[in-house]
């Protein structure tokens, strides 16, 4: 059996010595070696490829939540009826088994992992890389050194209406200000686009890191949060403005804005590689990804990062992190497209991996997804 070391570590000096090819406005067929011959592109490529070893699965930790939000993914479908396994020994065995089958990264998600901190700790002890999706109302012990994604769905007035919880942002900030694990995830719905300005101002004043997400309808959902072509365009314009307004606090890129607000969802743009939409079990997510329910069972036919999402409307940040990233080959067509892909991957790693330091965006304008047009508006 041959061994693998982390790729790329000894190549930076070679990259620096290479010259920058002259970019022409004419159509040209680019060699990959020419694209990464640009010192900035080459260095970023070497930086991100060290993380290609990440293999994720996701885990519902409870079937309870301390709030109930409109359009919540967890309380769609039958996963909400799974019996809750609260036995730490069972969770430890599961994590050991996951490690044995090659999983290197865990996402602890539904319904609310902060209600079972001891189980989160068991997961962390066995699997040191991961993230927790939380509403942020109960602090997770510092000993669980995962990224913590705190969901924000608008200002506190909107949160009270949609999530039936008072003073959410105030309480979330009180719990997670100055916590290096925390990334606040603002989900744009059709109704809260303009509210990001006030929310972002408050979060940046408190030094919080923020990333952006898109409401993606659960199966059958036709309510007022679902995006329209107009709201997608307005969201995109808002996202792009925020990137230049909050370079220190916002983890996002122009290409992230394109990928997540295009008139087409992620599946049409990039062919979703999660098992639910991908029959192949030979390689990649189709082979390794599992979505465990709170009773530790899993079902391949339902497995994706946010189960029970309407796949045609999926623009979820968690989905994009895997689906856009997986499409390395098709983005290596020209320097700008590849820069955009690198920005996307750099953003995703900063959002999901503790200790990963994000660089500046390499591409400052919007680039079309391979094989598609730039979205209008």
């Amino acid at each position, binding site marked *: *059996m*041959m*061994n*693998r*070391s*982390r*790729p*790329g*570590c000894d190549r930076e000096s070679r990259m620096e010595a290479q010259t920058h090819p002259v970019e022409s406005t004419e159509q040209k067929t680019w*060699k*990959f*070696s020419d694209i990464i011959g640009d010192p900035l592109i080459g260095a970023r490529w070497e930086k991100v*490829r060290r993380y*290609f070893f990440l*293999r994720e699965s996701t885990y519902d930790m409870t079937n309870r939540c301390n709030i109930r939000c409109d359009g919540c993914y967890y309380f769609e479908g039958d996963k909400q009826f799974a019996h809750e396994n609260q036995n730490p020994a069972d969770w430890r065995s599961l994590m050991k088994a996951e490690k044995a089958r*090659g999983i290197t990264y865990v996402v602890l998600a539904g319904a609310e992992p902060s209600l079972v901190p001891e189980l989160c700790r068991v997961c962390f002890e066995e699997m040191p890389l991961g993230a927790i999706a939380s509403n942020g109302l109960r602090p997770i012990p510092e000993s669980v050194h995962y990224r913590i994604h705190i969901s924000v769905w608008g200002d506190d007035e909107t949160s009270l209406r949609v999530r039936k919880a008072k003073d959410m942002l105030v309480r979330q900030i009180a719990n997670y200000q100055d916590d290096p694990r925390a990334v606040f995830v603002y989900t744009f719905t059709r109704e809260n686009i303009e509210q990001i300005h006030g929310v972002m101002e408050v979060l940046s004043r408190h030094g919080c890191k923020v990333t952006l997400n898109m409401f993606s309808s659960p199966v059958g959902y036709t309510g007022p949060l679902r995006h329209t072509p107009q709201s997608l365009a307005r969201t995109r314009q808002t996202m792009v403005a925020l990137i230049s307004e909050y370079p220190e606090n916002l983890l996002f890129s122009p290409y992230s804005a394109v990928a997540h607000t295009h008139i087409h969802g992620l599946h049409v743009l990039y*062919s979703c*590689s999660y098992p639910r939409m991908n029959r*192949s079990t*030979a*390689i*990649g*997510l189709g*082979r*390794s990804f599992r979505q465990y329910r709170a009773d530790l069972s899993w079902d391949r036919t339902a497995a994706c990062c946010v189960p029970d999402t309407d796949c045609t409307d999926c623009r979820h940040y968690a989905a994009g992190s895997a689906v856009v*990233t*997986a*499409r*390395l*080959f*098709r983005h*290596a067509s020209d320097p700008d497209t590849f820069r955009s892909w690198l920005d996307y991957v750099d953003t995703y790693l900063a959002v999901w991996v503790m200790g990963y330091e994000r660089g500046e965006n390499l591409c400052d304008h919007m680039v079309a997804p391979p094989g598609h047009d730039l979205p209008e508006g």
Partner: protein
Amino acid sequence: MGNPYEISKLTLRIAEIMIDELKLEDVTPETFDPDIDLIDEVGIDSMDLATIALVLRDEYGIVIDEDDYPKLNTIGRIAAYIQERMDEAKQG
């Protein structure tokens, strides 16, 4: 289909690329078993294969379709795939 000499040259070169790009240790192009399962036994995944596909695109001018990755689980199969594409290109 290319002759055995060409295929074996191709196999050696792909092994060399794989060792270099993926920093494989304890193996040389000559000792790399062309039939070893890259996914099950070497631990290669889709991002690694995409990286190799880009280097092969540069070197041989052929595009490996993303849908074909699952079939390309040994160096021998990758070599045969490339040879087939190159033969097709020659025949016009």
